């Protein structure tokens, strides 16, 4: 089912939860709401669920405006961070509860619950109470309960945050697979960008109650439209440095203190036209330690990540994070030359924080 959010605003007294949010989600799409805590993503989700009434704007499920529709009449399923299982009911009763409320016949209830439980791999736990299950099993029960009534829309509120790292990886794959299989429009709230990048078809990045960007993971990563998106998406985060870009005729120079970098026509043109300093962003993987690099710096600290080392190099007053093969055995204090891949550099307007390259 298509979900359309038009100019949605939700305020709690004077506190703005989310402001002027417009999003169009296609049928069967998996959308992630990504942002730091307090950015309004959960507020948006609960407004979609009907727990909160919108202060302003319009929400449509398909063609139906649901602003005033009660949660129970929206036919949505939701999975909570805390699982929110009913502790006094068995797993069976938990999963069957939505069906019971819909007055589905007892034998059909049994059939459907067993079916869902088998899909979730908890078919043998139906007689237990939630307190007797592990975190992963509880999560599966919660998912089963959300799925059993065949919802039009599935809502996830940071469902994996309480699981351990390994289980999180497994559940991530399972949820994505299940969603693709069932084709249910899903909205997934998370503050973990890896989750959002790996699972979602499109990611809505939010900050301070505003939508920052709404794009596919690839697009967000390689063509960030705002400074916030560039900084928030990607791990380790993008390096930022304030530079002056000057030049003409296809050859541009980005300059900052001791730093002098050549930029090509495609990336150098727009920032050169900007009056004053701009913010240049460059991802760690686009900087290499190389003999023939033209920027000289000193290694400040080396953080081994296992597969590679995260190295913090100081160039004058600036600090750059970059990734380097562990075999090179870098030590802090070592002097190195850096090579910047300026074809991947991003430029942002320091005032509006919008990208100068992509609009």
């Amino acid at each position, binding site marked *: 089912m298509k979900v359309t959010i038009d100019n949605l605003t939700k305020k709690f007294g004077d506190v703005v939860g989310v402001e002027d949010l417009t999003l169009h989600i296609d049928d069967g799409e998996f959308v992630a709401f990504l942002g730091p805590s307090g950015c309004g993503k959960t507020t948006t989700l609960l407004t979609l669920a009907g727990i909160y009434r919108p202060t302003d704007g319009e929400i449509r499920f398909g063609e139906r405006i649901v602003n005033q529709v009660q949660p129970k009449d929206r036919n949505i399923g939701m999975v909570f961070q*805390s*699982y929110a299982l009913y502790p006094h009911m068995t797993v069976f009763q938990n999963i069957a509860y939505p069906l019971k409320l819909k007055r589905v016949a007892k034998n059909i209830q049994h059939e459907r619950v067993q079916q869902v439980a088998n899909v979730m791999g908890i078919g043998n736990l139906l007689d237990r109470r939630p307190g007797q299950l592990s975190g992963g099993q509880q999560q599966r029960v919660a998912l089963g309960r959300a799925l059993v009534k065949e919802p039009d829309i599935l809502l996830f509120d940071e469902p994996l945050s309480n699981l351990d790292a390994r289980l999180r990886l497994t559940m991530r794959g399972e949820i994505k697979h299940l969603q693709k299989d069932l084709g249910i429009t899903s909205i997934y709230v998370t503050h973990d960008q890896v989750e959002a990048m790996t699972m979602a078809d499109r990611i809505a990045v939010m900050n301070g109650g505003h939508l920052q960007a709404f794009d596919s993971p690839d697009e967000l990563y390689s063509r960030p439209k705002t400074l916030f998106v560039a900084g928030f998406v990607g791990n380790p985060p993008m390096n930022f440095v304030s530079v002056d870009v000057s030049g003409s005729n296809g050859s541009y120079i980005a300059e900052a203190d001791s730093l002098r970098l050549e930029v090509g026509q495609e990336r150098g043109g727009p920032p050169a036209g900007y009056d004053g300093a701009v913010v240049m962003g460059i991802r760690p993987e686009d900087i290499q330690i190389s003999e023939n690099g033209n920027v000289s710096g000193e290694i400040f600290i080396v953080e081994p990540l296992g597969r590679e080392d995260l190295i913090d190099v100081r160039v004058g007053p600036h600090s750059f994070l970059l990734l380097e093969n562990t075999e090179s055995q870098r030590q802090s204090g070592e002097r190195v030359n850096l090579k910047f891949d300026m074809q991947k550099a991003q430029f942002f307007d320091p005032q509006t924080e919008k990208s100068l390259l992509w609009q």
Partner: protein
Amino acid sequence: MSLRGELFDRTKIKTEEASASLQGDLVEALRLGVISMLVLLLAGFLLSGVIGPLFALGSVEETVTDVLTRLALLALPFVAYIAAASVARRYTWTDTPRALSLALTSTVLLFLLVAVGHYAFDYGVFAPRPSLEMTLSQTEAGIRVEAIAPGGAADMAEMQVGDVITAIRRDQVDLAALNLRLSQSEEDTPLRLRFIRGDEELQETVRVAIDSDKQLSALLPGLIFGLVFTVVIVFLPGQWAPYIALVGLMTPLLVGYFWVIVATFSYRTEGLIPLDSNDNFGGFTLENWESIFVGNIAGLEFNIWPILLTSLAIAVIMTFVVLLVSSMAGYALSRMNFPGRRFFLSFTLILHGFPAITLLIPIFIVLLRLGNIPIIGELIGFNTAGGIAMVMVAFQLPLGVWLMKGFFDNIPWDMERSALIDGASRWRTYWEILLPQIRPGLLALGIFAFIGGWNAYIIPATYSIGSGVSNLPVFLNELIDETAPVDWNQVAAVGLFQLIPIFIFFIFAQEYLLNIYAGGTKGSS
């Protein structure tokens, strides 16, 4: 010195301690014992010398501090023995002779210290005692005078050896009773003794003298008791200590319950011992219970069933209404935002602290007026169980509302949201999802309300004057008021009768109280 060096040094000191000589241990034991004695002395001094007079300034009786001081002084040697024995306990199972010798030696030394203190301050066994200055013994006929101190009080009153004392004034006494009277007397208190000399019954007034002879032999039982006590402490398994303390504290309660139960099944009790009419052990009877159901106690005629029913009606109505209103109000206060919520919350708290007694007369008038309204007056007016229950409910509600609000506050919002999204209405969420989770709370409040209603006295006694409506506590009071002499065994039976439903209630509630749900939500289980 480096941190490491310091740590190393400390461990060294500890090992030295562990391998210390017997003398070293003895010094440690004595030091601990003396320190604990000094602490208790200081506590006693603070109680009687500082806090007591402060109480007296506010013209409050300072008997509490007196009792506590005496308790501290009484416990003083034993606490010292325990402190000393605790040193010996480290060898109890590894080197028993050493532990015993250490404990006994330190006990003797501490005992001597205490004895010197008692001797110096005329305390304990050396305290001056009221005395009649004659030796007495209990015989069949009465208390026989065995010897008389020449020139003493008895001699002055011209008592003679062989006299048999039967009474003080008109009160029959035995030796124990006489000694009790004596211990409560002061110097020069006249005791008019009746006694039999030959065939004559005579009467003489003996003036109590104060015997301040210090007899060292009186110390011996104390020493023996102290040594036995120490040996017990040395061999006492450590994990028993809390139980012993608890049993000690509970003993008075248990004795009370024991008496109530024994008394209801006997004609007469002397202390805890049931007696028949010839003062012999026995005299068990069911008459006390029978007369409750027959409805006649010492001429007071009654029917127990309406009284029981009134009690039950008050308790049940109260439990039901309190649970219903508190849980719903608690839910609203916990989950909803409405004007005046904060005011309401603080106001109920103030109401809870409000002394209900001060409202007795205004509510009396309100109930009286309510009683004049047709139909409603029949249900909740003056002289009705409903009216009494309503007043009791009103006094119970502030506590209940706060308690329930607290329980609802502990249920995560997500649980409720989840139920709403699953398709439940708000009412159903409250009823099917939230209420089951606060079942322990409901049960606790229910028990409070039920017991409160069942044992209610002041309010039923005030608002059911001169009518047939009375509950068990009111009836119990009537029983004491209107029968003379009061048959306490009968009163005990009615009291125990009142206890039975509560007892049953608890047996069933116990099972539910222990069956507390856990888990289901991360972080809140």
